[in-house]
């Protein structure tokens, strides 16, 4: 059997396992070993299985992942998300489209500390959709705004996907994190502008409903109305906003100034979140210990999820490299009689159908080892292209059938159907593609911040 046929068989096994509900990490491992058995025989495949789970996990650079996850879990469990939401709402809530804009900007602020796009959607889903529905927005549109905001915010550091790309592509994690800042903020600003413009357009001629009133959290938390009142109070909102700014400043400021490495930034950020969790006001039914214990258990579980993907991808990528797939593809692409920019654009567009079966993180893990050699071969900056690649995985977060953000928000809002949300989210997919085109055309939006950073010693 030729290597090409074996690769096709292994990819077929991978897709088959994914669609029958096998965890993606496990599916990658099984199909990678399956391919290795066909390509190199049982002894080699068996050796890969015995050593890869250790070597794919025991890497200092990966230590940043549990740190960022812990940081996000502490913030989420302490109920800070609602405080950030009300803080943003106090600023933009009264403009037309203020509620969807609040959702977008609060998600951007929260994503700066949570590290997970789906976590952002989960954190703001209930409040956002309930409040928007109350103010007359359709539930499907409200859900689509939340799902899109989570996807648009995926670039704002600390993002797990950014870290995983950097490690897989063997480039500086710190540079990659900094590279995500401006495109992330730009994406959030474009989306906020779009939802405001859309509201003004749809409400023209009806001045009575031209403004969104402030949110009221107490209606949704009658069992702990006192905490909800605190969350939406001026003081609670201010503390929430300060909390977000402080943690973002520690992580990004620390890396930017070279005070510490990206890994240490994650640890210092998580430590600061831990200290803040111990001093901020919390829900009545949760002790400080309960917030910390729940966050630690979640962090352990989510870290394991990410690492199962990493281990599975390492096994699968070993197989791909053994089959010479990355080098053959790079050589084939280099031999194409097409301008380099067109080649890179075509690769990005090819990622779209892949996003219909793989989630963002899995896509990054599978595609990066194949794509980065091509980018290097063509003489482009892998950091620039990495951000574009992650933008495409963002789109995968809101496209059927594996749009995780849509499934998360549909799970939170039981009354809305996934198919209807996917329909409502379509304009946001087009908007995201337009933003990606701008980033493609103007690379300095991505590369400027890392270029002025001071590397940690």
């Amino acid at each position: 059997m030729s290597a090409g046929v074996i690769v096709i068989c292994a990819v077929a096994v991978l897709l088959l396992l994914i669609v029958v509900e096998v965890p993606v990490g496990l599916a990658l491992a099984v199909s990678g070993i399956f391919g290795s058995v066909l390509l190199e025989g049982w002894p080699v495949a068996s050796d890969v299985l015995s050593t890869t789970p250790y070597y794919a996990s025991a890497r200092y650079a990966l230590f940043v992942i549990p740190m960022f996850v812990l940081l996000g879990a502490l913030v989420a469990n302490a109920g800070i998300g609602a405080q950030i939401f009300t803080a943003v709402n106090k600023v933009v809530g009264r403009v037309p489209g203020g509620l969807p804009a609040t959702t977008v900007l609060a998600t951007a602020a929260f994503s700066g500390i949570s590290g997970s796009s789906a976590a952002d959607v989960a954190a703001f889903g209930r409040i956002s959709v309930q409040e928007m529905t109350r103010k007359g927005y359709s539930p499907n549109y409200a859900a689509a705004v939340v799902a899109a905001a989570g996807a648009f915010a995926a670039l704002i550091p600390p993002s797990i996907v950014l870290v995983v790309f950097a490690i897989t592509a063997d480039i500086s994690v710190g540079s990659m994190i900094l590279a995500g800042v401006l495109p992330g903020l730009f994406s959030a600003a474009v989306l906020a502008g779009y939802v405001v413009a859309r509201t003004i357009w749809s409400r023209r001629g009806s001045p009575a409903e031209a403004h969104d009133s402030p949110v009221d959290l107490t209606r949704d938390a009658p069992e702990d109305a006192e905490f909800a009142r605190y969350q939406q109070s001026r003081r609670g909102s201010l503390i929430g906003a300060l909390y977000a700014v402080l943690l973002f400043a520690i992580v990004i400021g620390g890396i930017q100034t070279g005070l510490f490495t990206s890994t240490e930034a994650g640890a210092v950020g998580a430590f600061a979140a831990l200290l803040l969790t111990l001093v901020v006001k919390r829900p009545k039914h949760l002790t400080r210990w309960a917030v910390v214990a729940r966050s630690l258990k979640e962090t352990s579980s989510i870290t394991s999820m990410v690492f199962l993907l990493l281990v599975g991808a390492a096994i699968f990528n070993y197989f791909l490299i053994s089959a010479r797939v990355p080098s053959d593809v790079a050589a084939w692409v280099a031999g194409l009689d097409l301008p380099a920019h067109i080649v890179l654009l075509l690769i990005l567009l090819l990622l779209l159908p892949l996003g219909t079966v793989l989630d963002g993180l899995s896509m990054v893990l599978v595609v990066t080892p194949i794509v980065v050699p091509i980018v290097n071969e063509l003489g482009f900056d892998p950091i620039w292209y990495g951000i574009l690649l992650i933008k495409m995985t963002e789109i995968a977060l809101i496209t059927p059938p594996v749009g995780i953000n849509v499934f998360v928000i549909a799970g939170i809002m039981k009354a809305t159907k996934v198919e209807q949300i996917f329909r409502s989210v379509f304009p946001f997919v087009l908007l995201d593609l337009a933003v990606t085109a701008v980033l493609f055309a103007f690379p300095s939006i991505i590369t400027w911040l890392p270029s002025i950073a001071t590397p940690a010693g």
Partner: protein
Amino acid sequence: MRTDTERLGADPHGSAPTEVPDPASTPGGTVLDRLETVTETVARFAAYLGGVGIACLVLATVTDVARRAAGMTSINGLVDLTEVALVFVVYFGFAQAEVDKTHIRTSFLTERLPDRVRRVVLAAVWALAFAFLLWAVVRTGQSAADSFHAGESRASQSGVPVWPARVMVSLGLLGLALQSLMNVIAAVRGRRSGGDR
């Protein structure tokens, strides 16, 4: 589609999680229910241990940064220790991530299948996963034994031993294998294991 997010900050008010009744404590509780309860309890305990490990690594790293900021030397061997400890943290949570259904998967096809077909498919794929993971447990276990006999340690002055981490890899995979077995049993019995129960 199930992801981590049902658990990660799903409620901005931080409201209490819904309590799931213990099947083993009900009159109809069976040996299999008890087995499920035991495996899930062990998985949860291991996840908490992993969480404590993460907290320790945070404190160690922050201490190291503070020492450097104060003009002192770095903690000797911290990077080596962190790498080995990271393996413990990761594999302690493997089984719990399956109990929680945190491992990323897609159910868009299986949830459209007739119940009987779906159960057969899930039982078959989880049986395959169980067999694969058992093979991985055996191979990583052999690797751990080799590492122990050779006295393998980090190739630096710290000399941090590696074999405990290799043992942990095998144990973590065993935990995931047991959860796969529980998924087979759950599919055969027509119910979902873990977080979906």
